[in-house]
């Protein structure tokens, strides 16, 4: 394998974690990872060696996710919004993990965030990207990223406090 391939394989756990922040279910998260990998392979000529592969791959995933969200939204206008109730439940059994109740509450609170804020939280708080890197992945100015991050955090603190989970 060349450097690109090795780099992509090394990225898989981080891609999967990011996908789990974004997607509604484990199956959706896996689809998101798979699609991201396929697109990255198909478009590897678009990756410039010497730049960061993680930011590049995260950007691909973000775009796929946003596209899916848009088409889901269109679909939801046509079909009854029955899916609203189910998504969070599937998560408890995600990969058979024995999550502490608090961790589950945190995860559900993250999942309840608007997409923009969830992306920011996923990139900065969970993956640990710098603000500049996260803004690049999201394709927004740095100021937009920070305001989404502030709002996302305020919402999380508020939601968790309501549930009696100390943040």
């Amino acid at each position, binding site marked *: *394998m*060349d450097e*690109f*391939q090795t780099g*992509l*394989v090394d990225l*898989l*756990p*981080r891609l*999967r*974690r990011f996908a*789990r*922040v974004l997607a509604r279910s484990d199956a959706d998260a*896996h689809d998101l*990872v*798979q699609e991201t*990998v*396929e697109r990255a*392979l198909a478009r*590897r*000529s678009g990756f*410039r*060696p010497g730049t960061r592969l993680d930011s590049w791959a995260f950007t691909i995933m973000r775009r796929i996710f946003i596209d899916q969200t848009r088409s889901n939204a269109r679909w939801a206008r046509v079909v009854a919004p029955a899916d609203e109730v189910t998504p969070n439940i599937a998560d408890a059994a995600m*990969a058979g*993990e024995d*999550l502490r109740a*608090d*961790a*589950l509450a*945190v*995860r559900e609170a*993250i999942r309840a965030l608007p997409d923009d804020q969830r992306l920011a*939280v*996923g990139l*900065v*708080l*969970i993956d*640990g990207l*710098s*603000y500049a890197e996260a803004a690049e992945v999201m394709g927004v100015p740095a100021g937009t990223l*920070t*305001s989404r*991050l*502030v709002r996302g*955090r*305020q919402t*999380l*603190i508020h939601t*968790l406090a309501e549930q009696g989970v*100390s*943040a």
Partner: protein
Amino acid sequence: MTPDTRYDDETLMRRVDGELSPEAGAALDAAAAGDPALAARLATLRSLRTRVREAVPLASDPRDRDLARLIAATPGPSPVAGRLLDRLRDAFAPARAPLWAGLAAACFVVGLSIGWLGGDRAGAGFTVDRGGVIADAGLVRVLDSRLTSDGADADGRAVGLTFRDAEGRWCRTFQAGEAGVAGMACREDGGWTMQALAPFHASSGELRTAAADIPAPVLAAVDAAIAGDALDAAAETAARDAGWD
């Protein structure tokens, strides 16, 4: 949370995320040391950060093995060609679009040849000597003898326009379809020197003639160099048969 008069949520968040300058961070820490409310706000943000991170842990997944196999089984385009294209893309980024010729070309071409020769030479490509002299026998042969009407050879190499520049040198544009580049070379001391190069994608594998497939930067180099008109087929044949005198 009630925003502190001096420190808003964003500033505290930056502190927790390591996005404040060391000085600003130290000032905030000093303020928090004497202000329990501020310290509590910081502690809440720190704790949230930890909790969020722990809630979505980095975990290995058995399905990653399948993806790793998929990745391993999908080799990219020739890595050498990839690097070449990257450099060309850099050189011809819109901000630097002005054509590059003469000395600039020679400098670039030196860098080019280093990268190129460092890779495997099995793939289609060509080499350029220091100073911009084209050393690749295949490309030299194409420039020496091929006519526009011949179209492309087996490696996708073809010539486009042939003309004299202001110094009276013969110049020809070429396309190296497999290598993904097109360029302009001029006759000098019995050899061909590279004047311009640009990324090039052959249209549906079939090389059209003349200017249609010449990338804009190369075309700009032609415009800058050409004296008079490009040769027609008869004149091109005559010039070749005369050995590019």
